[in-house]
């Protein structure tokens, strides 16, 4: 549905994005992650045709965003960063304006506007002036105008910034419900959001794509080590001594669990390419110690993100 090939954008001496290539399948929700200034907005602006890439090309639903710009834009609903809106208009007339330009036939406009207003929960502010709306409502109006015309592709630049937790949850629900129906690219720097909404994630840093994969795969693939957590009733020094001698174990930490006599919690760091859980379990059981729990702790997306974006900087 969306294909980007070797996108570059260079302003004078500053390279905003370099060699960004990716594809998004139909119905997929892609999270676009990166620290501020990494090139998320630039990439999205190129996809919507607002910026022309210095080189490379982008195709949306079969239409080239530069050569066939108007047709490409017909497939897109876009929510720009910071939700720019015409402040002197009221919600209803603004949506009417958007519906007209998006080419919705006059007969369908009222019904479509009503539906999107219902979907985004802004019926209550229909006659309010956009300049006087709260940040949360502005964001929803922004989302509503993006949804008008039933576009195949939604490009959302930081849709949840500045919202309160309840509003964030609502917007997330709206986006999540689109899975399968629409292709969505959403940028954010809120990491849990990506694990919650997106199937696939793309991480950009200093204008370059540094990782792109399904959320779970990425967590596994990019982890530099694997953490296994064990609860066992065993003498702490003996058990840690025994486990640290196992192949592939790099570090063992042991703490006593408060309120449970004799139970200690072991944090075992192992190499990421092997799963030592069965081995650890059998070792402990063979010694006759009680085993309560063996758990593999997947690194969070946050760990990976920090790892990648900070690590790159150190290497440079």
């Amino acid at each position, binding site marked *: 549905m969306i294909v980007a090939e070797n996108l570059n954008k260079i302003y004078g001496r500053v390279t905003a994005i370099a060699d960004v290539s990716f594809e998004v399948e139909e119905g997929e929700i892609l999270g676009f992650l990166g620290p501020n200034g990494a090139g998320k907005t630039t990439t999205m602006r190129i996809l919507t045709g607002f910026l022309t890439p210095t080189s490379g090309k982008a195709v949306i639903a079969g239409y080239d965003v530069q050569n066939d710009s108007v047709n490409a834009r017909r497939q897109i609903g876009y929510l720009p960063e910071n939700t720019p809106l015409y402040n002197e208009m009221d919600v209803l007339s603004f949506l009417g304006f958007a519906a007209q*330009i998006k080419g919705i036939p006059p007969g369908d406009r009222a019904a479509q506007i009503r539906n999107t207003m219902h979907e985004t929960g802004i019926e209550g502010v229909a006659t309010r002036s956009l300049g006087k709306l709260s940040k949360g409502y502005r964001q929803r109006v922004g989302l509503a105008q993006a949804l008008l015309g039933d576009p195949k592709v939604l490009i959302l630049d930081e849709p949840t910034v500045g919202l309160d937790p309840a509003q964030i949850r609502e917007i997330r629900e709206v986006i999540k419900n689109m899975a399968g129906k629409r292709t969505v690219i959403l940028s954010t720097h809120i990491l849990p959001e990506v694990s919650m909404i997106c199937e696939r994630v793309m991480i950009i840093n200093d204008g370059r794509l540094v990782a792109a994969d399904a959320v779970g795969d990425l967590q596994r693939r990019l982890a530099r080590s694997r953490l296994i957590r064990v609860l066992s009733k065993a003498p702490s020094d003996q058990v840690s001594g025994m486990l640290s001698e196992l192949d592939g174990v790099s570090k063992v930490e042991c703490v006593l669990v408060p309120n449970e006599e004799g139970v200690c919690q072991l944090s075992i760091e192992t190499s990421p390419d092997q799963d030592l859980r069965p081995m650890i379990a059998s070792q402990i059981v063979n010694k006759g110690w009680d085993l309560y729990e063996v758990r593999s702790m997947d690194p969070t997306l946050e760990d990976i993100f920090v790892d990648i974006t900070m690590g790159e900087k150190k290497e440079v």
Partner: protein
Amino acid sequence: MTNVWAIYKREMRAYFVSPLAYVLYVLFLVVCGVFFNINFSYYTQISHNYMTMMSMRQGMGAPPMPNYTDLVLMGITNVMTFILLFIIPMLSMRLFSEEKKLGTIELLMSYPIRNGEVLAGKFLAALTVFAGMLILTFGYALISANVVPDQTYLKTLIAPYVGVFLLGTAFLSFGIFSSSLTENQIVSGVISFTVLLVLWLISFVNEIQPGVLGNICKEISVYAHFEDFSKGVIDTGHVAYYILFSAFFLFLTLRMLESNK
């Protein structure tokens, strides 16, 4: 076409929801009104003098009668061209600058609409607001209809009004161009005022220094081409000048919109 209409409606609303259009209307009409009043008093005075003089010069052949159109109405159209130097930049400065400042240009450009359609909608809206001002000044001409017995003078107003309209259109297209240059409305307004003022003033270079330079300046000047209109003549050469001037800057605006990417 529906896209142009959508933009047009939105711009018209923006003009009349904010105080801008009203302020400009009042400003324009008040200044025109003041000059109408001055010209009118002047006219009544010389007409009175003329009558007295006529009664004293029985049978000596009549000098030309003071002409109402020349003295009052055409005088106002000359004044209008000068007021428009201030009014038009204020009318046009927000057209693109405001959208750039607020970021709405990004939203607008993400819709399936051509740059040309955006420009056409905005330009036509500003032109409508300007045309509205001109139409309201017909009021002055109608007031005089009560005073002046001979109504044929109204026809002689066509040429000066066509001239003012063309001049305003040219100003507006430069204004919209300068608005596409910057996201700061004030800067945009100052640029268009300054450039238009220079283009207005160079028509007088010819009087100070006649010759090739003077002639060139006169040909370029936005005001020199208006003078014939104010004398009641519609010359296709001058009409062509204003149309080409407008087309040139509208074209440049379009290029600006594309190059900003």
